[in-house]
């Protein structure tokens, strides 16, 4: 797998697994899970500095930036304006001009507001950002985001943090079929098989946070996800067999001991 690289915009990644930094039991567990996952890109959120308690240690102290690229998100933004402001602030922190763009349209499902997402994508692309929008698993909005200059499209597999797995595999297939930018399945993965399915469908990568961070053993789950993404990717490349309704025997159908052996043979 060492030569099977993921390229987004001007950057190349060795891993097709992108992981988050939220909800871990501790920073050291997160760092260990990151190592186990093999990921070389992790997401972070942008939030107000806590002015009354300055004791919290910086998250960045627990991310090995010599190996891991940091992708800030605009999670929690409900308008294009807030997402744009958040992206600009993230860029000013000074690590890169990349942003995982989220504009949420509904609190309960955290589904994206596609109209505001498209608008924010246009503005940020114009300002020179590398925009990776988190979007619905809708081929039409994915196409529009790509036309607006998104560097990748990141359709959800299921609601954020739900662990439901890939709810609409056919849409992911269609999105992959039409997209000329990388397709990253973002959100909804619950366990390793979900990640493998995303990759088998042809996704170029999978982004997940909760599935690893809240697993009983985050480090073991990170390892499982690494293997699942690799397995799914290999299976996709290998070309799966066609589905059929009835059996096709794997062993020879002739020569079984119960079969009639034909005419008399003399020796």
């Amino acid at each position, binding site marked *: 797998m060492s030569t099977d690289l993921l390229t987004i915009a001007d950057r190349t990644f060795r891993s097709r697994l992108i992981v988050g930094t939220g909800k871990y039991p501790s920073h050291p567990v997160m760092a260990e899970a990151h190592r186990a996952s093999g990921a070389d890109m992790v*997401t972070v*959120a942008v*939030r107000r500095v806590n002015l009354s308690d300055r004791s919290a240690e910086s998250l960045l102290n627990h991310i090995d930036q010599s190996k891991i690229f940091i992708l800030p998100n605009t999670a929690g933004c409900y308008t294009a304006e807030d997402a744009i402001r958040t992206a600009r602030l993230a860029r*000013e922190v000074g690590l890169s001009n990349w942003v995982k763009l989220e504009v949420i349209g509904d609190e309960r499902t955290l589904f994206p507001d596609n109209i505001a997402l498209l608008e924010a994508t246009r503005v940020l692309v114009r300002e020179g950002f590398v925009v990776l929008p988190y979007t619905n698993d809708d081929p039409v909005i994915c196409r529009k985001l790509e036309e607006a200059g998104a560097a990748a499209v990141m359709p959800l597999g299921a609601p954020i943090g739900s662990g439901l797995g890939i709810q609409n595999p056919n849409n992911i297939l269609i999105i992959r079929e039409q997209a000329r930018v990388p397709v990253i399945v973002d959100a909804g993965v619950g366990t390793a098989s979900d990640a493998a399915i995303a990759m088998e469908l042809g996704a170029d990568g999978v*982004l997940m946070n909760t599935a690893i961070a809240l697993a009983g053993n985050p480090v073991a789950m990170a390892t499982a996800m690494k293997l699942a993404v690799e397995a799914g990717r290999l299976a996709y490349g290998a070309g799966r067999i066609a589905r059929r309704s009835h059996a096709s025997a794997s062993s020879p159908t002739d020569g079984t001991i119960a079969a009639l052996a034909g005419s008399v043979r003399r020796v």
Partner: protein
Amino acid sequence: MRYPVTIRVNGAPLELVGPVTISGLLAGLTIDSRLVAVEHNLLVVKRDKYESVVVNEGDEIEIVNFVGGG
């Protein structure tokens, strides 16, 4: 000349003795400016302007950093 200034930082009122620059504000709050980004009345302040931008009465300041997220 010194004068009182009330601004809002991260949504909460803050009373200062002016004139105060962004640099002075961060220092006063004991914030390491390398790990944060600052917005002044909805516009991002570039790092090289921290010394020169002065905050005025009623200004809205946001100071953000990176935290865990997905």
